[in-house]
């Protein structure tokens, strides 16, 4: 996927620059872009290391577990089909806690384990309602402190890199709430269609039985 995006971006720039007569600016940008990238990475490195150090302390002191416990009442409502003392539920809440703390490296393996637990012994290739809720949660960001973005902002000269936190919280919560509601509504509708199909199937079976008789 990235190969296509990368090649497309470069090809589009070359094409555009020929038509718009900006070939010189574009070839200059090649050099300045590479330099800018390294500068950004170097300026970000201090803050990034500081944060991952602090987050490692959070992980070691099991802050994730405390957070997981705090959020389990909400999660219990969101996952009515998952038993609250099951391994699946534990994986889900730990995954959410890790995401909240911005521990992406810890969240992904937990998430994959949660999916495995949600699937259990079933051989079905169709996603269950709980799986959909869980994946939708993981495709929206639910981070308490958007550290990477803040680091990038301060590297590029922001006065107060964290002043967007409140906006990020409101935006994430509204987006996640809407995403989850859409998922829930469509799950319910799916059930109704499924139930109607079941009724239709049983009626058909009755008719066939009558015809045979």
């Amino acid at each position: 996927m990235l190969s296509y995006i990368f090649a497309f971006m470069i090809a589009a720039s070359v094409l555009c620059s020929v038509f718009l007569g900006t070939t010189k600016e574009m070839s200059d940008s090649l050099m300045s872009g590479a330099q800018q990238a390294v500068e950004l990475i170097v300026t970000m490195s201090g803050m990034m290391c500081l944060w991952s150090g602090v987050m490692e302390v959070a992980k070691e002191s099991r802050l994730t577990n405390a957070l997981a416990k705090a959020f389990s009442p909400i999660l219990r409502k969101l996952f009515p089909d998952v038993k609250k003392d099951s391994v699946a539920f534990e994986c889900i809440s730990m995954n959410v806690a890790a995401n909240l703390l911005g521990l992406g490296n810890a969240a992904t393996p937990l998430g994959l384990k949660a999916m495995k637990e949600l699937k259990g012994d079933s051989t079905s290739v169709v996603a269950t309602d709980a799986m959909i809720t869980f994946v939708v949660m993981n495709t929206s960001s639910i981070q308490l402190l958007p550290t990477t973005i803040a680091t990038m902002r301060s590297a590029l000269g922001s006065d107060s890199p964290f002043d967007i936190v409140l906006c990020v919280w409101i935006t994430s919560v509204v987006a996640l709430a809407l995403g989850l509601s859409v998922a829930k509504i469509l799950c319910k509708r799916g059930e109704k269609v499924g139930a109607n199909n079941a009724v239709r199937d049983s009626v058909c079976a009755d008719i066939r039985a009558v015809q045979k008789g």
Partner: protein
Amino acid sequence: MPCAIAFVLIFGLCKRVNVFEAFVRGAKDGIKMLYNIAPTLIGLIVAVSMLKASGCLTLLSDTLSPLTEKIGFPSELLPMTLLRPVSGGGSTALLNQVLSDYGPDSFLGRCASVIAGSTETTFYATTLYYNSVGIKKIRHSLFASLVADFTAAVVAVVTVNLFFLQ
């Protein structure tokens, strides 16, 4: 933010964790992470700065501006918003472009930061999670996730307007 760091460190001490050792280990992981993302970021930031310098990015947002104006969404943010669910590295490169072009504390810079901070690489996560357990039919999962991404883009602009103008 310093409060958050102090809180984590004191919480760690209370739980009898060797705080400094853990910190150093984590910081080492931070360096490793940067080492891992650096090549991707260099490649994509070069590509994006070429897009910008060639005039392609401006052309794209100008073409799309009639569409975005109707809902009051700044067209300069559209390329980043559209790439966000597809590629994390690509959208980071575009975020970097917006932040350095307009300034991180500008209206556009703030909107871009909020959008990037409240969304994820939807397609990547969806593929990863379902593939790992062999799910082929994902029903309305992707649709619901994209609704969330679209909402985030709109709400980000609204909240930044609310909190930072006047």
